[in-house]
């Protein structure tokens, strides 16, 4: 499996990278870790004449945490760096957990969280929790800078809202509200190495025992990660009892659009959406309860 020939560029600034994208034509590809892109090239699925690596842009790998602004994950920050970062482990434990659930040690030492998002696989591990936590995509392109909520970023398998020659420079994740909890669970047939058959992530905010706000996202059960709006309605304004959690699971299963493929059957996926939804809701609720002042 040799790679076919291509030109390689390693610009030192984002504006240089944007100019290269404009001048090299629509088939040129950006590369962060290359763990998705090089695999697609090895399989002959894409044959870009030109690769533009982002790794030489200084500071683009930065991970920053600020008490008010929240977390910023730079475009070339590695999955392993996000999984192990002390501020992320402390303030965004589920973000760290999702990064850690991605692939294996070696791939996490090469691949990035932003690359995982830009690849726009509906089964990817990182999108659901970031969508639940209201992450915002930081974009730079020929028209300047713009920001887009992550839940508006995915348009279909492998398709994002990026315009030609636009680059994602990073991801901003707001601080978790007080009394909030988060959780992410996924299932795959062969443990970590395999793509997910189903995933569910949630952020839930409590007032006393009442669930004030909730954002639930299901992955690998549609062309993009899907929001479980009816399941959220089932939970909002109520105490999360076993019964409510089970009803929410049933709603989420109803809302999901799974297909049968080599990873799982549609029937299995539908049942597992219900199970994982129940699980993440209860886990996030537990986290929110323990974070409340007594």
């Amino acid at each position, binding site marked *: 499996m040799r790679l*076919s020939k291509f030109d390689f560029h390693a610009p030192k600034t984002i504006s240089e990278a944007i100019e290269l994208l404009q001048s090299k034509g629509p088939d040129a590809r950006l590369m962060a870790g290359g763990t998705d892109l090089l695999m697609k090239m090895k399989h002959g699925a894409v044959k870009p004449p030109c690769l533009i690596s982002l790794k030489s842009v200084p500071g683009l790998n930065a991970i920053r945490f600020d008490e008010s602004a929240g977390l910023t994950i730079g475009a070339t920050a590695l999955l392993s760096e996000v999984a192990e970062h002390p501020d992320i482990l402390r303030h965004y434990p589920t973000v760290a957990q999702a990064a850690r659930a991605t*692939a*294996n*040690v*070696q791939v996490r*030492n090469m691949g990035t969280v932003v690359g995982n998002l830009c690849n726009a696989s509906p089964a990817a591990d990182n999108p659901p929790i970031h969508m639940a936590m209201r992450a915002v995509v930081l974009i730079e392109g020929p028209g300047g800078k713009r920001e887009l909520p992550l839940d508006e970023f995915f348009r279909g398998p492998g398709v994002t809202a990026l315009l030609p020659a636009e680059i994602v420079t990073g991801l901003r994740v707001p601080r978790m509200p007080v009394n909030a909890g988060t959780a992410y669970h996924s299932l795959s047939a062969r443990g970590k*190495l395999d793509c997910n058959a189903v995933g569910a992530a949630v952020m839930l905010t409590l007032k006393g025992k009442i669930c004030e706000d909730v954002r639930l996202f299901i992955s690998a059960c549609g062309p993009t990660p899907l929001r479980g709006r009816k399941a959220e309605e089932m939970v909002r304004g109520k105490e999360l009892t076993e019964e409510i959690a089970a009803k929410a699971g049933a709603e989420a299963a109803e809302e999901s659009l799974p297909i049968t493929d080599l990873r799982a059957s549609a029937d299995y996926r539908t049942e597992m959406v219900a199970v994982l939804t129940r699980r993440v809701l209860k886990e996030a609720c537990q986290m929110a309860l323990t974070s409340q002042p007594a």
Partner: protein
Amino acid sequence: MKHVITLNVNGDPYTVSVDPSQTLNEVLREELNLTGVKLGCGSGDCGACTVLMDGRAVSSCLTLAVEAEGKDILTVEGLAPSGEKLHVIQEEFIDKGAIQCGFCTAGMEMSALHLLNKNPSPTETEIREALSGNLCRCTGYAKIVEAISSAAQRMNDASERNQ
């Protein structure tokens, strides 16, 4: 267009002219003749090609050689630079019977080193997690885990003696 890159492999500086489409695995094996680095799946799944790049375990089959410019690479050949005295990890792999056909061994040992550098006293679960990207078709893993665990112990004992 070829790119001239300079990289440091097992402590020695090399300057090589590489095509962007060459992987680090191809350059290590074919240009530098470091055939201890294996090529299994070529797709990031098996770990046979694992090397340390600036101290991090990476799959050399999914790393472009041009991106190794200026980096420190450690391959299994660098574990026993004299060619005679083996690294503790290698000795334990032999003693514990953790090698059968040997195809996975170099990658396993590099992953083990990456783990022990970060976490000198790993639990069995931590060892198994650290090997999640390394497949072995022969041993059933039990002896590999044992070997890494006793290598950890020996390395810790040695560093205590040195203090």
